[in-house]
């Protein structure tokens, strides 16, 4: 093994330790609920808590809706910029980066001022309309990740030539988008979807200030009032996230073989 390889392995091991040691610590702590011995009591309590199921289910639903709305906005935008408006790319990239610069709390206070119950568009007037507002706010939060993932996928294929080839063979715009472009950026969309899911599932600020029963506020509540359950929740959230990542990886690999240029 040459020196360069040894250096690489050391970097990987240090990186892994940096991530894994705290995780092991959290996991170990979550097993200490029963005095003097390890047990899964904390997990039993968490899974048995109806609030866990309700908030996790709610956040999952919000994440799915966010992904759907986000994909519907981001994919055609990215496609059109690639195809017809490449000069607008810097502007769109700047806009999509803004949620990283503007704190979520600023955005949510802006929403509350704009869409409160006495405004022209009272989105906070009912629970369902507030859910809608929450989805839109999550779309904003996920925009930097989703846009970048999709845009990278679009750049990897020659969108313009593929579009022209399909058009030349008689295809209409919807056919081009759904039969030619989307299948070839599926992996990129899935990556964006995963990042969006990971962002939404543990999000606290938006859900809390809009007073929605999401998983983020539940995590915070548990953390403030319990000792071992928050650690169990952290491990569960981590496993769910990794399961999603693994799933996307498997699906993505299957498609990658077909879609390789």
């Amino acid at each position, binding site marked *: 093994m040459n020196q360069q390889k040894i250096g690489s392995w050391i970097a990987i091991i240090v990186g892994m330790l940096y991530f894994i040691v705290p995780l092991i610590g959290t996991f170990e702590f979550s097993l200490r609920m029963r005095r003097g011995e390890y047990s899964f009591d904390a997990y039993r309590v968490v899974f048995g808590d109806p609030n866990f199921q309700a908030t996790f289910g709610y956040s999952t639903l919000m994440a799915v809706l966010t992904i759907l709305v986000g994909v519907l906005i981001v994919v055609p935008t990215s496609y059109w910029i690639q195809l017809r408006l490449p000069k607008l790319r810097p502007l769109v990239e700047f806009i999509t980066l803004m949620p990283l610069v503007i704190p979520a709390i600023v955005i949510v206070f802006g929403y509350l001022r704009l869409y409160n119950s006495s405004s022209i568009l009272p989105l906070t007037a009912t629970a369902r309309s507030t859910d809608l507002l929450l989805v839109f706010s999550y779309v904003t939060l996920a925009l930097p990740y989703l846009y970048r993932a999709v845009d990278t996928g679009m750049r990897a*294929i*020659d969108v313009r*030539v*593929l579009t*022209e*080839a*399909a*058009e*030349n*063979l*008689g*295809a*209409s715009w919807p*056919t081009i988008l759904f039969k*030619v472009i989307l*299948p*070839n950026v599926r992996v990129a969309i899935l990556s964006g979807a995963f990042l969006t899911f990971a962002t939404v599932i543990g999000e606290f600020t938006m859900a809390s200030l809009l007073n929605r029963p999401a998983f983020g506020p539940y995590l915070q509540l548990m953390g403030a009032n319990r000792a071992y359950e928050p650690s169990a929740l952290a491990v569960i959230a981590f496993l769910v996230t990794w399961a999603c990542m693994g799933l996307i990886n498997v699906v993505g690999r299957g*498609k990658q*073989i*077909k*879609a*390789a*240029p």
Partner: protein
Amino acid sequence: MAFLDITDVRKNYGPQTVVHKFDLDVERGEFISFLGPSGCGKTTTLRMVAGFEVPTAGAIRIDGKDITRLRPNQRNVGMVFQSYALFPNMTVADNVAFGLKIARKPATEIAGRVAEMLKIIKLPHLGERFPYQLSGGQQQRVALARALAISPKVLLLDEPLSALDAKIRVSLREEIRSLQRSLGITTIYVTHDQEEALSMSDRIVVMNEGRVEQIGTPFEIYNNPRTRFVASFVGTLNLLKGKVVDPVAGKIVIDGQEVFSSKRIGHLQAGEACAAALRPEAATLHQTELQEAAKIASSFARESGPRNRMVGTIEEVSFLGSVVRIRVRFQENAISLDTFNNPNATPPARGAQVTVTFGREDLLVLEGAEG
């Protein structure tokens, strides 16, 4: 009436005109090449026929129907792209079937047509492969099959061979031409490769800076170039700076040696600077002793015989396989000429004195000396 009629077509991008007044009549089944350097407007013109660009002015008709404003998917024009543009998520068979599925043809008809097309391109066994599993040449054949599967009225090829290596390029261009002949499909082929254009086309449209320089058969374009650009762009050309001595007799002087052109130079004045163009294959090399060569040359010039002779020194000898390219310097001017490689004869050495002869009809005198 021509099958494909491009009338007075112009294309502007903002204030810049990229195609000026393009006129072309293409007969049914004809193979036309657009030849020119990068940025000359050949691809833009092709894209206007395909419908990817809308002309600023003028009209395009196919079989009498005005298609100028029709969308690309309404024109029934097949196109092959330089980068193949195969759909990566589809198999070869699905790629070929794509246009037929869009046209909602019956499944049995699609299957039959796909099999037929794959057979035509000699890849009948690769229908289930994905594009990334094929070589560049195979991918381009599939792209050709896909374009032909929809039975287009006109086939457009945009530099289809430029991404391939030299050997495949030659074999594939022969295949494309023979396929085009057997199907009798009207074809426009864009290329910057003069050899491709000369070997494949019924007629060539030579373009430069958005303008048509000349339209003609490969023979006409090569042997009777109408403009200086065509003369220099098509084929290899020696340009020699000289001075007109007697415009009526076609006599000019190059580096102190008198030569004659049988082509018309009456529009030039005696004493005016000029440039003379000579194809490398038109010149013949004679290895002679210096004094004898000079004697031959001067006596020849005096007698105004049938061939021009110039005495010079060999400056460079390049071995190109079947051909040996030799560069002969006179004084200010030099010419390159090609001789066949003869394994039994030693190529001339650098520095040797030689005589170069060429026919009067081979010397084309151009106006101005800038070459």
